[in-house]
């Protein structure tokens, strides 16, 4: 055989034939090397081999190997190499020091064989034996890949997720499970990952998709963890199909938006309703007022009496509208509570001062007991006032003799959170047990066997209880028919 034929045969070898100087500079680069590593001859010659095909984390090991070959004369070893495109592969390397007598120089001669595929098969069998049972028992899809990006093991769930037959994923590049647009970045991520392997949990915020065998995509969530064995390092991926969850999230978001729209519509409705109801009342209350003021002229006694009836009905209607709106606002959660530090002593004193004339008119005594030091509580002043006024005015309304007793006390204090208690006791007609059950319902009024038409809107207690709940408290009632009633408001700080 001629030297030319031998040279041609060397070029035809599928393995990479590389010759370097003892410093590691490439002087020969076979066609096999191009085929395996991706660099053409002109890109390789005169370049340091370490820059071409050695991954960053292998650099120091490579230099050590080179020194050993020069010193000892030969070496056979396994290594991880890097292609021109950045992807990794496993190689078996046979190296020998060669003395070129005619040029009086030492060279390093290497043949590198791509063993990635074989290694995957080998690792696969090992991993399978060791981990198959465990991996089959999890509900998630599990894919184990080696640093060169090939699937060493995939459990049945993963195969089903991506639409592959049993065993079909082994030895395939893990990238094929990703849509094309992710693949390029994934190669980089993978190499990075092996440099700094760390657990990454699901839901790290990336919107990922998986690619099924049939070409369809589906949203996935993955978590990664490194797995180290004596043979090699692997990446374990747990994959979850989150299509259903995404659909539920979307439906939830849409229903939330719809809810927000409905609430807004309801608020507009409340505001408009308030306006519409008050407008005609303006004329009713207004003109009965001007007539009773005798502006257009004098009135007969009967005319005046009838007009007063209209006026009182008009005022009742207005009170009803106001209370209804308050109830509607509370029901729809629209009441704005203004929480501030309230001096409860001052509050109850204000209420008694306001209602004293009414009590005196009926010959009732209005008594007030407050703690010595002013009881300060973080709550809404207007709401609490409204409740106390309502309960006290009820007490006055339903008593014909005797007294109404208002007591303010500190009920409890723990971790500097105070709870106040306001009791309103009267000596009035009392409430039967039967009626007590319906006490706080809307529009409940009781047959008190009195001649007078029922006063009030029937919403006072209902509203008061709703307000008390909004403040985080309660209203309770103790009563005996014919003896009187005691209403107790409990308000925690909040």
């Amino acid at each position, binding site marked *: 055989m001629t030297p030319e034929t031998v040279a041609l045969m060397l070029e035809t070898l599928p393995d990479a034939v590389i010759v370097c100087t003892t410093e590691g500079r490439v002087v020969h680069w076979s066609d096999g090397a191009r085929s395996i590593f991706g660099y053409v001859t002109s890109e390789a010659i005169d370049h340091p081999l370490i820059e071409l095909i050695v991954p960053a984390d292998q650099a120091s090991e490579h230099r050590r190997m080179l020194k050993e070959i020069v010193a000892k004369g030969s070496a056979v070893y396994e290594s991880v190499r890097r292609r021109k495109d950045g992807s990794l592969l496993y190689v078996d390397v046979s190296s020998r020091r060669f003395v070129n007598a005619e040029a009086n120089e030492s060279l390093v001669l290497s043949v590198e064989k791509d063993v990635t595929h074989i290694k995957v098969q080998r690792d696969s069998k090992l991993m399978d034996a060791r981990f198959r049972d465990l991996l089959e028992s999890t509900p998630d899809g599990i894919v184990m890949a080696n640093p060169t990006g090939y699937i060493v093991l995939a459990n049945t769930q993963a195969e089903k997720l991506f639409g592959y037959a049993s065993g079909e994923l082994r030895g395939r590049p893990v990238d094929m499970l990703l849509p094309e647009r992710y693949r390029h970045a994934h190669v980089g991520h993978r190499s990075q990952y092996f440099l700094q392997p760390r657990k990454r949990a699901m839901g790290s915020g990336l919107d990922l998709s998986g690619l099924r065998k049939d070409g369809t995509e589906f949203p996935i969530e993955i978590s990664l963890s490194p797995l180290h064995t004596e043979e090699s390092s692997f990446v374990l991926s747990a994959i979850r199909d989150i299509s259903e969850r995404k659909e539920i999230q979307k439906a939830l978001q849409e229903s939330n938006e719809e809810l927000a729209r409905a609430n807004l519509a309801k608020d507009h409705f409340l505001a408009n309703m308030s306006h519409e109801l*008050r407008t005609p009342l303006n004329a009713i209350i207004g003109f009965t007022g001007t007539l009773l003021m005798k502006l257009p002229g004098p009135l007969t006694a009967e005319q005046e009496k009838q007009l007063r009836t209209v006026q009182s009905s008009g005022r009742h209607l207005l009170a009803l509208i106001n209370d209804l709106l308050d109830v509607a606002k509370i029901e729809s959660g629209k009441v704005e509570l203004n929480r501030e530090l309230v001096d409860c002593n001052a509050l109850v004193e204000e209420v008694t001062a306001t209602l004293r004339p009414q009590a005196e008119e009926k010959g009732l005594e209005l008594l007030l007991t407050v703690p010595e030091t002013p009881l300060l509580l973080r709550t809404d002043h207007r709401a609490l006032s409204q409740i106390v006024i309502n309960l006290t005015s009820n007490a006055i309304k339903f008593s014909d003799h005797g007294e109404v007793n208002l007591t303010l006390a500190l009920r409890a204090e723990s971790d500097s959170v105070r709870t106040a208690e306001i009791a309103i006791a009267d000596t009035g007609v009392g409430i039967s047990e039967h009626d007590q059950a319906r006490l706080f319902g809307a529009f409940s009024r009781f047959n008190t066997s009195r001649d007078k038409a029922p006063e009030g809107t029937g919403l006072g207690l209902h509203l008061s209880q709703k307000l008390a709940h909004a403040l985080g408290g309660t209203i309770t009632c103790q009563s005996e028919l014919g003896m009187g009633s005691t209403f107790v408001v409990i308000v925690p700080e909040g």
Partner: protein
Amino acid sequence: MPANVLIIEDNSANLELVAYLLESAGYVVLVATNGVDGVAVFQREMPDLVLCDLQMPRLDGYGVLEQLRADPTCRDLRIIALTAFSMRGDEDRVLTAGFDGYLSKPIDPEKFIAQIEAFLPADLHSRHRSPTGL
């Protein structure tokens, strides 16, 4: 000298009520049934006080306020909002927009004149009262 008062209100019953009360108290009353006319009447007559409904079609109370304040010839503008809205925060909105005051509907016919006189200097108050007193 009793003040000239301009009422801008699209509801005829409400307009009638306020006009009646003011006239009975001795004030000179000017009327407009919509915002656009209201602005025109103001520019022509320069009344001492304006009572303006908030909710009117086409040009509402806020629109009237804006136009009058933007007009350099309209000085000494005293304008009170009359409104049937009653949510907490409505009053703040009205005062922040630049109204001098706010009266809530339904009005109290017995207190109404005293309430609006709070916005007028004493020399513009009417000394004339109807025989039964207001």
